[in-house]
């Protein structure tokens, strides 16, 4: 159990520290400048050397130039933001001084620390939150554009080429955004405090994981200007081989994204495994910690397969390799398998942190212990284990290995059992509780409704003959939006409301938040329930135009989508306005028991005055003998949660 020995010396270092060296001058803007210059220079040189439209042997020139430019952007950005300064100085023999470390942790820098290579996990958490919400907003704009186009059949506003590109961009931006949506902000900000640590195991890697992710977003946006992608975010070969250079930018973006999430996953796993406070055995660890750790393990195993698939796609496109080109001995099924070995665990990477957050909140708002906490833990671990065994249910109709249809149907249906355990834990916690209907609890109920529908329609899809009818149709789209948007995103928004006060020191505006919740729920169900009907009636997915018999369903979906948009804008407004001038929050407005609620809101730089000692789990509601911590690690008693112990009726 690491006790970092760095204890704040009160006021002696309250003023701006002297350390940092060149890091004082480097930030996001210098990163962007260096990155853009590098990308432009490399592209100009590469275009001169490699691109020659008249020479057939140099047909891959444009792809090579785009790849070089995008990689140059990332490396230039990382150089400009100062990611390589510390390793370089270490090579030169200059170790970090205490002042350097304090500067890097953002001491005394005010808002500027959010734009720098700051190692403080709380800063990284806020950075992730802003990035995740911004990317989600961009994805939402694309979604509304798609739905506007689909409101009526016919050529309409723009044709299939732009539409296919929109669909692909919407997909990848939403996937990136939802993967980081809970693990990024709360796995970084809350989890170390929740386990009684002062920071994560590798603070500089923490900053690196964020700043490696940041340049990925402009890469995906640049795809639109390079011809777009015709494949959807799954980037199936060999259509990916046919695509314009936007496909190369897409692939580079994916590779960088997987690298970033790998770094973050390692950091999180090591932190949760080794830095828990004295007395925090695994049985006493909050379920949220277990959830994000399990997610990180799963992501670390699964996401690199996508990276490999994209590297091989790049080789096919830029070096005339033949991994996925059937005419030259390759196989399109190789790509499909690589992709889906990532693709299925990836949706659980999105889902499990949100589920863990919901599981963390439900006891607080039912004032009851988490029912069957071990069942919940077992459920999460089983989900992780089983999710790597089900991938070919996405390939039932591909014609690959028809003899494996039965076994994959078995594993896919088995996954419904741990999912059912999660529902058992949730309603077991709610049953006989004292339901405190604040905004996070509304989201819990929303999750129960949406995720149930999403999960059940997943079972429909797991049946092979039914999948023969439903695959590639709008039914699948509705199913995964119910689980990812209706389940995981609702859980993420609940987490934002729940931990908002801890992160910002202000309470989230629950009046506007409640309007936003109901608006989103109504709009969401209208939009995607109509899609179930349309999909079952035979409308394919990813189509820019459709048979007029599907008009009514599409108009309903579009109307619902606009309502979702209004709800999301309300939520955004509530977030921004609460952050700027919401009411000041106490340390523990929810009367919760996990360690983060014992520290002030927002927490000081090193979280605790003294590291806490844990004596029980964090769900001891109604049981005066079960206390999470006897030494909360803060000096003032006022921050001890002001709960009352009711009688166990």
């Amino acid at each position, binding site marked *: 159990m690491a006790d970092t020995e760095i204890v704040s010396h009160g006021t002696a270092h309250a003023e701006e520290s002297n350390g940092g060296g060149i890091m004082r001058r480097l930030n996001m803007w210098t990163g962007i400048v260096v990155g853009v210059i590098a990308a432009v220079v490399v592209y100009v040189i590469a275009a001169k050397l490699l691109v020659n439209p008249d020479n057939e042997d140099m047909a891959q020139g444009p792809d090579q130039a785009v790849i070089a430019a995008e990689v140059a952007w990332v490396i230039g950005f990382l150089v400009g933001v100062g990611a390589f300064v510390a390793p370089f100085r270490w090579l030169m023999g200059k170790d970090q001084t205490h002042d350097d470390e304090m500067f890097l942790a953002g001491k005394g820098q005010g808002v500027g620390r959010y734009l720098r290579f700051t190692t403080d996990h709380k800063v990284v958490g806020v950075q992730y939150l802003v990035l995740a919400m911004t990317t989600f907003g961009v994805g939402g704009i694309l979604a509304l554009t798609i739905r506007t186009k689909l409101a009526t059949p016919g050529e309409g506003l723009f044709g299939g080429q732009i539409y296919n590109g929109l669909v692909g961009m919407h997909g990848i931006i939403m996937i990136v955004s939802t993967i980081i949506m809970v693990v990024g902000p709360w796995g970084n900000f809350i989890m170390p405090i929740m386990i009684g640590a002062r920071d994560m195991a590798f603070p500089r890697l923490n900053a690196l994981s964020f700043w490696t992710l940041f340049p990925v977003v402009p890469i995906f946006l640049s795809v639109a200007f390079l011809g777009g992608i015709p494949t*959807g975010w799954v980037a199936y070969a060999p259509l990916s081989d046919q695509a314009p250079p936007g496909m190369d930018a897409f692939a580079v973006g994916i590779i960088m994204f997987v690298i970033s999430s790998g770094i973050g996953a390692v950091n999180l796993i090591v932190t949760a495994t080794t830095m828990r406070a004295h007395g925090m055995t695994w049985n006493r660890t909050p379920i949220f910690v277990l959830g994000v750790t399990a997610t990180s393990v799963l992501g670390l195993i699964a996401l690199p397969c996508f990276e490999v698939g994209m590297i091989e796609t790049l080789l096919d496109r830029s070096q005339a390799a033949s991994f996925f080109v059937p005419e030259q001995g390759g196989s399109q099924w190789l790509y499909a398998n690589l992709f889906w070995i990532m693709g299925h665990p990836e949706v659980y990477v999105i889902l499990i942190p949100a589920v863990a957050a919901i599981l963390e909140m439900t006891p607080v708002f039912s004032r009851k212990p988490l029912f069957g906490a071990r069942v919940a833990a077992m459920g999460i671990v089983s989900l992780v284990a089983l999710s790597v065994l089900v991938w070919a249910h996405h390939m039932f109709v591909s014609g690959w290995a028809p003899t494996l249809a039965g076994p994959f149907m078995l594993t896919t249906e088995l996954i419904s059992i741990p999912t059912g355990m999660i529902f058992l834990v949730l309603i077991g916690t709610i049953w006989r509780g004292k339901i405190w209907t604040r905004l996070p609890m509304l989201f819990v109920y929303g999750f129960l409704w949406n995720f149930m529908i999403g999960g059940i329609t997943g079972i429909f899809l797991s*049946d*092979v003959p039914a999948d023969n009818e439903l695959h590639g149709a709008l039914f699948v789209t509705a199913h995964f939006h119910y689980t990812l948007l209706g389940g995981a995103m609702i859980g993420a928004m609940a987490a934002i409301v729940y931990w908002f006060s801890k992160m910002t020191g202000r309470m989230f505006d629950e009046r506007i938040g409640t309007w936003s919740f109901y608006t989103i729920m109504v709009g969401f169900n209208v939009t995607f329930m109509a899609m179930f009907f349309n999909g079952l009636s035979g409308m394919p997915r990813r189509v820019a135009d459709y048979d007029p018999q599907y008009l009514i369903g599409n108009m309903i979906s579009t109307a619902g989508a606009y309502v979702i948009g209004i709800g999301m804008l309300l939520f955004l407004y509530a977030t921004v306005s609460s952050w700027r001038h919401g009411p000041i929050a106490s340390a523990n407005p929810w009367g919760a028991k996990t360690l983060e609620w014992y520290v002030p809101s927002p927490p000081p730089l090193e979280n605790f005055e003294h590291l806490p000692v844990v004596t029980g789990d964090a769900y001891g509601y109604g049981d005066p003998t079960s206390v999470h911590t006897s030494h909360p690690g803060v000096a003032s008693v006022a921050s001890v949660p002001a709960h009352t112990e009711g009688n166990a009726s």
Partner: protein
Amino acid sequence: MSNDIEELPEASSQPPLSERLKTPEGKTIIKVATVVSVLTVLLLIFCIWWPLISLPPTMSDTEREVKNTLLIFSIASAPVMALVWGIAYYSLRHWNAGSGDTPPEDGPAIRDNNRLTIAWVVGSSLLTAFLLIWGLAALTSTTTLPTDAKPLTINVVGQQWLWSFQYPEDGGITSNDLILPKDRPVIFNVTSTDVIHSFWIPEMGIKIDANPRVTTNTLTTPTELGMFNVRCAELCGLNHSYMETTGRVVNPADFEQWVKDKGGSPGMLVPLDVNKIEPKE
């Protein structure tokens, strides 16, 4: 009191069921059961209605299997949804502690209930097993031909952005419309000349990807006369949404007439090699 381990020790000291149901705890159980039952009925109505109203007209045996499967799965999901939502709703109504600024007092410290957990896991496993067995049976029935069947073989070629159909057993004719004789099993050999497409007939419940350089297959038996749609179900580029054509199920006599009109000979086997199409590098 014997030492038989049929009953748990406390069970022998519990009053009979009718007494237990009159306690406050028992009354709660009855009320919840009522809510769940009402919800089950409502959901059953929805779960039966929605596939029946959405599915395309059933024109083959495979589609009938799909329809039955979806109905059964949908019906089986109604009590599951009702149970979870009913309990959640009842709790919200009955144990609502308001939305005040301070946390309400704590509830009872119920951490687990082993019997409930076991019952839940066993129940969900049984349901999963049932759905799995049903699914395997459906899978078998939709992928095996009856032994005395004389299937018609049709080659399906998907390319960007067009379907074409070859009838190697009827003189090698090609067609843009898919004409099928009624009540005769048909095997589709599907391939592509460029990227991955997906050969889908919604009214017949069959779908199989068209892959370059590989031939996949699927089979069905049309059982109703009429028109159907052939669509592409895998994004294949610019005109993916227009990769659609018509089909018709006709009487066997009309089918033979159509073959002759097209210049073929019904029943004449022309071994068309599907891979004779040459995809460009």
